[in-house]
C-alpha cells in the first residue's frame, strides 16, 4: 500500500515536471511559435524603468538574483532567488479571473557550507487575484507570500521564507545596468530568433537577514541580478549550458556562457567583461573556454557536474572553486527542473579576485518513464 502510494507520488511528480521541463531547458520548438507572442528582434532599445517590469508579450521571462552573504562572525552563505513568468499562450478569450494566461514560478536556494547541501524551495501559481503577479512598468513579482520588488530609488526588496529557511534582503545598485549582447539583444544560437533581451545589475550591495531553523542572521554581501525575456530561446539541438556571472573585487563584472549541443559540440558562446569605468569588452567564441578541472557526482540524481572549472576570456584565465560541492537544485519533487547553481570563488594567479555564481544545466538525462 505504502509502496504503491510512493509510486503514484513519483509518477505525479514526473507529470508535473513535464510542464516545466520546457522551462528548465527552455527548448522551444518551432511549432510553439505563436502569432500572439512577440519574437526578440535586434536593434531594439531597452527603455528603463519600463523594461525593469514584466513583458507579457514574450513567452518566458525571469528575474534572477545570486550572491554571496556574510554574517557578522564571517560565516558565508550563497543564495539564489528566481522569479519566472511563463506565458501559457492560452485562454485569450477567457474572461474568468482564473484564466491561466501567465504562470509565476519562484525558486529559492541557500548554500550553507555548515549544512553541506543546497536548501531550496519552489512555488508555482497562475497569475490572478493579487496572489501571484508580475507587474509591468517596474520590477514587481509576487507569489503568495514571496515577493521581489524594485523601489523608486532602484533598491530591490526580496522576501522569501519557507518553514525552515528564508531570506529577507535589500539590494542596492552601485553601478548602471549592464546591457548584454548588442545593447541588450543577447543571441543564444546560430538562428537570429534564438535570442533574448537581457540586462544584468552586478555589484548590488546587499543587506538583510537569513533565516535558518528558527534562527536569524544579519548578513551583508554582494549580489548579481539578471533580467531576461524572450519567446524562442534555445536551439532544439541544445543540451544545456554553462553560465557564470561574477562580481570581481576591483569593481568589474564578468558574464560568460556557452551553450552545449547534443553531440558534444558547442552551439554558442558569449562573454562580456565590464570594467569599473563602464567600458564593455566582448569576446569572440574562440576566445572563450570552459575547461573542467574537477567533476562531482550528485548522490541525488547521479548527474556528473564540472563543479570546478578553468575559464578563459581572451588572455585572462580564472579558476572557479565552489563554496561547496552539493549545490544541486533538484526540484523533481515539484517543478521538475534539475540544475547545479552554486556560489563560486574566482581565483587568478592563486589569489581570490572575485565571487560569482556558476550555473550548470542539462547534466541530468531526462528520465525515461
Amino acid at each position, binding site marked *: 500500500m505504502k509502496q504503491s502510494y510512493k509510486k*503514484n*507520488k513519483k*509518477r*505525479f511528480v514526473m*507529470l*508535473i515536471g*513535464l*510542464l516545466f*521541463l*520546457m522551462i528548465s531547458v527552455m527548448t522551444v520548438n518551432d511549432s510553439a511559435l505563436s502569432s500572439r507572442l512577440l519574437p526578440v528582434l535586434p536593434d531594439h532599445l531597452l527603455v528603463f524603468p519600463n523594461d525593469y517590469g514584466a513583458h507579457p508579450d514574450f513567452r518566458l521571462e525571469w528575474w534572477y538574483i545570486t550572491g554571496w552573504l556574510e554574517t557578522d562572525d564571517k560565516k558565508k552563505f550563497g543564495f539564489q532567488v528566481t522569479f519566472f513568468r511563463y506565458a*501559457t*499562450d*492560452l*485562454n485569450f*478569450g*477567457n*474572461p*474568468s*479571473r*482564473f*484564466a*491561466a494566461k501567465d*504562470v509565476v514560478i519562484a525558486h529559492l536556494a541557500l548554500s550553507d557550507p555548515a549544512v553541506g547541501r543546497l536548501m531550496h524551495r519552489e512555488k*508555482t*501559481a*497562475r497569475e490572478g*487575484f*493579487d*496572489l501571484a503577479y508580475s507587474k509591468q512598468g517596474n520590477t514587481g513579482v509576487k507569489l*503568495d*507570500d514571496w515577493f521581489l520588488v524594485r523601489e523608486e530609488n532602484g533598491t530591490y526588496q526580496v522576501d522569501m521564507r519557507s*518553514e525552515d529557511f528564508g531570506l529577507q534582503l535589500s539590494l542596492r545598485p552601485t553601478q548602471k545596468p549592464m546591457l548584454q549582447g548588442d545593447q541588450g539583444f543577447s543571441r543564444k544560437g546560430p538562428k537570429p530568433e534564438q535570442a533574448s533581451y537581457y540586462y544584468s545589475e552586478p555589484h548590488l550591495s546587499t543587506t538583510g537577514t537569513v533565516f535558518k531553523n528558527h534562527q536569524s542572521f544579519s548578513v551583508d554581501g554582494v549580489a548579481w541580478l539578471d533580467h531576461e525575456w524572450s519567446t524562442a530561446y534555445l536551439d532544439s539541438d541544445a543540451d544545456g549550458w554553462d553560465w557564470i556571472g561574477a562580481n570581481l573585487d576591483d569593481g568589474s563584472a564578468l558574464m560568460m556562457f556557452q551553450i552545449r549541443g547534443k553531440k558534444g559540440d558547442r552551439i554558442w558562446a558569449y562573454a562580456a567583461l565590464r570594467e569599473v569605468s563602464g567600458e564593455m569588452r566582448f569576446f569572440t567564441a574562440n576566445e572563450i573556454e570552459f575547461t573542467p578541472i574537477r567533476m562531482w557526482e550528485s548522490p541525488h540524481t547521479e548527474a556528473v557536474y564540472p563543479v570546478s572549472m578553468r575559464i578563459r576570456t581572451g588572455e585572462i584565465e580564472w579558476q572557479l572553486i565552489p563554496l561547496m560541492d552539493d549545490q544541486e537544485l533538484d526540484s523533481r519533487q*515539484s517543478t521538475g527542473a534539475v540544475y547545479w547553481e552554486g556560489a563560486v570563488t574566482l581565483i587568478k594567479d592563486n589569489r581570490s579576485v572575485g565571487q560569482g555564481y556558476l550555473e550548470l544545466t542539462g547534466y541530468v538525462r531526462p528520465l525515461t518513464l
Partner: protein
Amino acid sequence: MMLNRWLLVGEWRSHIGQALVTLLAIAIGVAMGFSIHLLNSAAFNEFSAASKDLSGQSDLLVRAKTALMDEALYPQLAVYDGVAVANPVLELDIAMPGKRQARGDYKLKVIGIDMFRAAQIAPDLLGVPEEGKAMDRLADDTIFLSPAAMSWLEVKQNDTLSFHVGIQSVSLRVAGGLVRARSGQSIAVMDIGAAQWRLQHLGKLSRVELKLKDGVNHAVFKDKLEQHLGTSYAVVELENQEARVANMSRAYRVNLNMLALVALFTGSFLVFSTQALSIIRRRQQFALLRVLGFTRRQLLWQVMIEGMMLGILGSIVGVVLGYAIAVSVIEFFGGSLGSSFFPGIKPDINFEIWTALIYFVVGLGVTLLGSIVPALEAARAKPALALKLGSEDAAMKKTSFPWFAIMGLCLAVIFTQLPVLNGLPVFGYLAIALLLIGSIALIPHVITWLFAATVTFRRHIRMGAVGFLSLARLENAPNHASIALGGILASFSLMVAMAIMVTSFRESVDQWLDRVLPADLYVRTAAVGDLGGFHLDTQQIISAFPAFSRVDFFRTQQVLFDVDRPEVTLFARPIDRIDPRNTLPIINDETHAVIALDSLPENVLPVWVSEAMVDLYGYQVGERVMLPIGASTHEFMVVAVWRDYGRQFGAIQIQLDDYRTITGDSTVNTVALWLQANVSMQQVIEQLRQLPFGKELEISRSSDLRAISLEIFDRSFAVTYLLELVAVIIGLFGVAASFSAQMLARAKEFGMLRHIGMTRHQILLMLATEGGLLTSLGIMFGFLLGWGISLVLIFIINPQSFHWTMQMYLPWGWLIMIAIVMLITATCTALLAGRRAVSKQVIQAVREDW
C-alpha cells in the same frame, strides 16, 4: 463421544432431505444478510472514499450555504492567518446527452481545479496529458476523464466531448486521463478558469479547501474563521463530510439489512419446526437412551450438537454464498442495488473477515435458538412416560408460554409509540419482531380454543368421519398443528405486510405525482450547478407562445442547512395566493395545521416546508425561521407542511416573487406549460424545438416524468421484492418440512386408522382437510398479523427512516391470489407427505420397533 456422532449421523442419514432443507434455509438467510451487508458497505465505503479523495488532504473546507460561492472569498482565504494552502474548486454535475436519467447515472461530475493549488492538496486529480502537450492542463478547451468516465461516455484521448450547459452546447477535447482515480469512479477534471467560462459559472466556486499551517489549532481556527465569514458560509470538517455521506444513505442501508434479517428469522423458524418434530419422532429413542444411562445433560448436549452442526454448516455455506452473490452482483449490476445513492462508482467487494464472523455467529445463534426449546424438552421428558405410545403431543406442551406471548405483543404495541433511536427506527423493527414472536407463541392456545369451540357445532351438524377426525386431531394435538401453522403464519404475514406497504407507498406516490405534475409539459435546460438557464428574454419568448394557457416558472437550488446533512432543495415558484393547495400537496390534518396567507402579518414571507424539514430540522407551522437564500439569511414563516416523496433530505418552497426580490436573480431552471384546449402536444414540442435554443432544451411530458418516477420507484424496490420472495420460499420450506415430518411421526396413527377400517383415500382426504384447515387459519392469522406489521412499516418505520408519510392501500387482488397459492401449496404438500406415510405396510406401521 462415539455415540454422539453415531446418533447424529444416523438421524441425518435417515432424514437427509430435511437436514439439507434446514441447512439450505440457514445458508440462504445468512447469505442474503451477508451479501447485502457486503454490497452496501462496499458501495458506501467506496462512495465515501471517493468523495474524500476529491478533497484530498485538506483540513477544512469552506463553502456557501447555497450551492455556490463568490470567488472573491478565495483570495481572502488564501492569505488568512494560519492557512498554508487554499485550493479553489468548482464542482458541477453535468447531464450527459444520451444517458438515461432513470438509471440515475446520467450526470458526470466535472471538477474545475487550479492544478498548482490542487497539487498540494489533491494531486490525484491532476490530468495526464499526452506527452509533449503539458499545457493541455491549463487550456480552456480541454477536459480530462477518469478511465471509468471514458468508457461510460465512450470517448478516448483526443475525442470531442459535447454536452449542454443551460441552453448552450459545449464541446471539449478529451486531453487525457487522471493521475489516479478509483476504479469505476466517473469524474472529469478541467482547469478552473476553463470550467468557470465554459460551464457558465464565471465568478463562482463550489468550495475552497484549506490546508492549515503546522501547529495551527484546528478548533480555534475553525471558530475564528466561522465568525469572520458569518452565517452564509459553512466551515466543514472531514467528519462533517463523512457524516453527510453516511446520512445520505443510512436509512436505506439499515432497512435493507433489516429485510435480510427477516429472511434469517424465517430460517430460524424452520430450524425450530424440523428440530421439534425430529424430537417428537425420536421421543422413544431418547427415552431408551435415558433408561440405558444417558443423563439429561448428555441428551440436551446431543440435540444441541445436532442443531449446532446444522448451524455451523449452514452458516459457512451462507457466508461463502453471500460473498459469491455480492461479487457477482457487483460484476453484473454494479454496486448501487437499484438505489441512486451511490452514483459514479464501482466498488470492490472485500471479504471482511470480522463481518463474516458476525454473520456466521448470527446464523449459528439463530439455529441454536431454534433448537434450544426442543432440546430442553427432550432432556426434560420423563423416560417412563415417553416410552409409551401416543405421548408425542404432550412432548411439546411446555413450548408454549401464553404469558410470554401476551407480553411480547404488549411490548410491541409500546414500542410502536417510542421515538427514533440515533435517527433509526430501531423500536419499530423490534416491534415487528415481537409481533411475530408473540403471535407464533400464541398459536397453540388459539388453536385449542378455536377447535374446542367447534365441539358444540360438531354435535349438531352431521359430518363424515373424515371431517370429525380432522377437527378432533387439530383440537387435541394443537402443538403439532401449531408448528406447521407457525411457518405459514410467519411467511404469509411478512408477505402481506410487505405487499401492503409497497402498494400503499406506490399508490401514494402515484397520487402525489398527479398533484405535483399538474402541467402538460415541463421544459428544462441542461441543469448545471446553480445555473438558472432561462434568462428573462428566453422566459418572455416562451410566455409569448399562443399555444399555452398558463406558464409557470420554477427556480430550484440546493441549500445547505446543516453541515452534517445533505442539502435541502429550495423551490421558488408562483404559489396560488388564494389557496396554496392548488399548487402544493399540502397536508392538512389534526397534526398539521395550515396558516392562511391573508392572516400573515405584513412583511412576513411565507415558506412551505416538506415533512422532512419537520423531522430533521424541527420546523413547525407558525414558526419563524431564518433561511440562507441569496447572499445572506432571511426570515420566513412556516405556513404549511407539504408531502414530498422526491427528496428525503428536505425541501422548501417559496414564492418566486419573494425569491427574486431577495436575490435579484431572475433566471429560472424549469418552465411548466399548460396547453390550450385545441393544441396538439406534438406540435407544441416541435415549435419549442425550433426556438434558437430549442435543441438544448429538455422537454418532458408530465406522463413521461411520471413514468420515469415510477420506474425509479420500482427499481429501488426490486431488491425488497427479491428479499421478500426469499423469505416466503424459506417459509414454504418450513411448512413442507413440518408437514412431512408430522406425517412420518404419525405413521403409527395412520396404521391404526387403517386397522379400524379407514381407506387410504379417506386418510388422504383427512390429511388434506387438516392441511387445508391449518393453512386457512394460517392465512387468516397471517393476514391479521401482516396487516399489523404493515401498520408499523407504513406509519412508524417509513416516516422515521425517510421522513414522509403515506396513506394505506390494501392490494386485495394480489393478497387473495397469494392466499390461494399458499393454500394450494400447503394442502398439496400435506397430501404429498401423507402419500408417503400411508404407503407403508399397515403391519409395519403399527410395529413398535420401526
